[in-house]
């Protein structure tokens, strides 16, 4: 096998892992299981960034982006989520708006939609890895679905993180990589979102003893 063959196989494997973890995030109800799933997805995303960086003509900046993505998605965000999880240990999605079986079927449908929608993108993009962009789009759609149908604050932020991973994957695969400054901005936003969630969950636990966003339906003095 030549080097480019090997590279393509590795990127395909990482894309497969992205899809698998997205389905896994829909499948499992326990919040404690979502965090490792998200870490694995972070690893797959970092692998894609690193593999593309090794091919990149102006390597240094791409390598920095890959390292940044790895540090953020594999270390920092799981760490923060674990701290949130510790506030409500044993939390699980007891009553998602769409039950798990239907949401898995919906995920399958969303993936098909992503595949259909990505056709023009693939045609327009010059890079050979662009064939895998439907994976990124599917991740975005599944992430939105998770964020829209889950009740717990942590699960909703997991959905948003899926969306972000999807956008990042699409950016890496369809273009020649993301400029460092853009990646820095996105990362800062993401960390901020998770931190806000942590504060929110802490306050909700103090007030209601639980992290269920449905408790926020009514206004109180």
């Amino acid at each position, binding site marked *: 096998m030549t080097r480019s063959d090997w590279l393509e196989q590795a990127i395909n494997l990482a894309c497969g892992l992205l899809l698998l973890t997205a389905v896994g995030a829909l499948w499992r109800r326990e919040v404690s299981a979502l965090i490792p799933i998200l870490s694995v997805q972070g690893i797959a995303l970092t692998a894609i960034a690193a593999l593309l960086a090794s091919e990149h003509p102006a390597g240094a900046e791409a390598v920095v982006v890959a390292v940044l993505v790895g540090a953020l998605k594999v270390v920092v965000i799981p760490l923060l989520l674990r701290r949130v999880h510790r506030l409500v240990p044993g939390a699980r999605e007891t009553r998602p708006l769409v039950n798990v079986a239907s949401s898995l079927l919906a995920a399958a449908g969303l993936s098909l939609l992503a*595949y259909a929608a990505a056709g023009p993108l693939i045609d327009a993009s010059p890079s050979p890895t662009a064939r895998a962009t439907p994976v990124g789009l599917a991740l975005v759609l599944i992430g939105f679905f998770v964020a829209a149908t889950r009740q717990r604050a942590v699960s909703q932020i997991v959905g948003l993180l899926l969306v972000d991973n999807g956008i990042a994957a699409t950016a890496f695969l369809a273009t020649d990589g993301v400029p460092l400054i853009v990646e820095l901005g996105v990362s800062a936003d993401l960390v901020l979102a998770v931190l806000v969630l942590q504060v929110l969950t802490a306050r909700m636990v103090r007030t209601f003893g639980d992290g269920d966003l449905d408790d926020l339906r009514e206004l109180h003095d």
Partner: protein
Amino acid sequence: MTADVRGLVIVALALGQAVLLAVLAPYVLGLTRAVRARLEGRAGGRLGQPWRDLRKLLRKGPTSPADASLVFVAAPPVLMATSIVVAGAAPFVATASVAGRADLIVVVGLLLLGTVALALAGLDTGTAFGGMGASREMTIAALVEPTLLLSVFALSVRVGSTDLATIVSAGATDPASVFTPASALAAAALAIATLAEGGRIPVDNPSTHLELTMVHEAMVLEYSGRDLALVEWASSLRLTILLGLLANLFVPWGVATALTPIGVLIGAAVFVVKVGLLAVALAVGEVFTAKLRLFRVPELLAGSFALALLAVLAAAVLG
């Protein structure tokens, strides 16, 4: 080889393969039971115990409930016949002998025909348990059969054919093409579908008659004697068929791609070893997992369906 001789060889091979699987199937069941018993610290039965049970049952005459119709009487032969046809026609030992005959859709359709025959028989007797088992079986089959189809479609995208023999021989001659993300996803989906279709933990517990959980046992409750023997034999044959498909589609090495005597013998030996290993893995897995609540089963099956669809998608997108 002239065309006539070749035709004869092909028929002989298909018959031989069907006989091999029919003889092997109860031993596969015996192996899973023996491994399970050993791991749980029990003595357990011997490998041949299912065969002894079958022989005992085959000697006894069947009894039918008073209200049973032809559907009840016909179900065991239909189940057995469809299983035997699949056992003879699918690429288990050699691919050249079955090329062009073992289309995926035919194989899944035959398996489904057997499932439906048994479910109808469960309804036919009009007992509470039979109807309950049949309705559960249909709930499961509605998700399992599409998964079976889709997970193999993921492999057929690469080959460009739904002929099982073509898929298996393409995998056997080009090993690199077997290890792709698509085939990993498809393997996971097909494994779950196999567990559900074979009635194993975590979907159904084959060793209990507990009315809250049983699926297969509930449907065959009214059978006795020869009929029961046929049903049990056919169920073990279906499990062997599914394990064999799983083995040959995702680990295709050893299967005979040419019609030489040595190749066919090696193919048969390798097939027996592969199915044996899968049966041991199945038994070990069963020791460590609990049966799912019936209401959680559709979640598992929907998950496997989603995996299969993603496998097809990955095969189309990533290649």
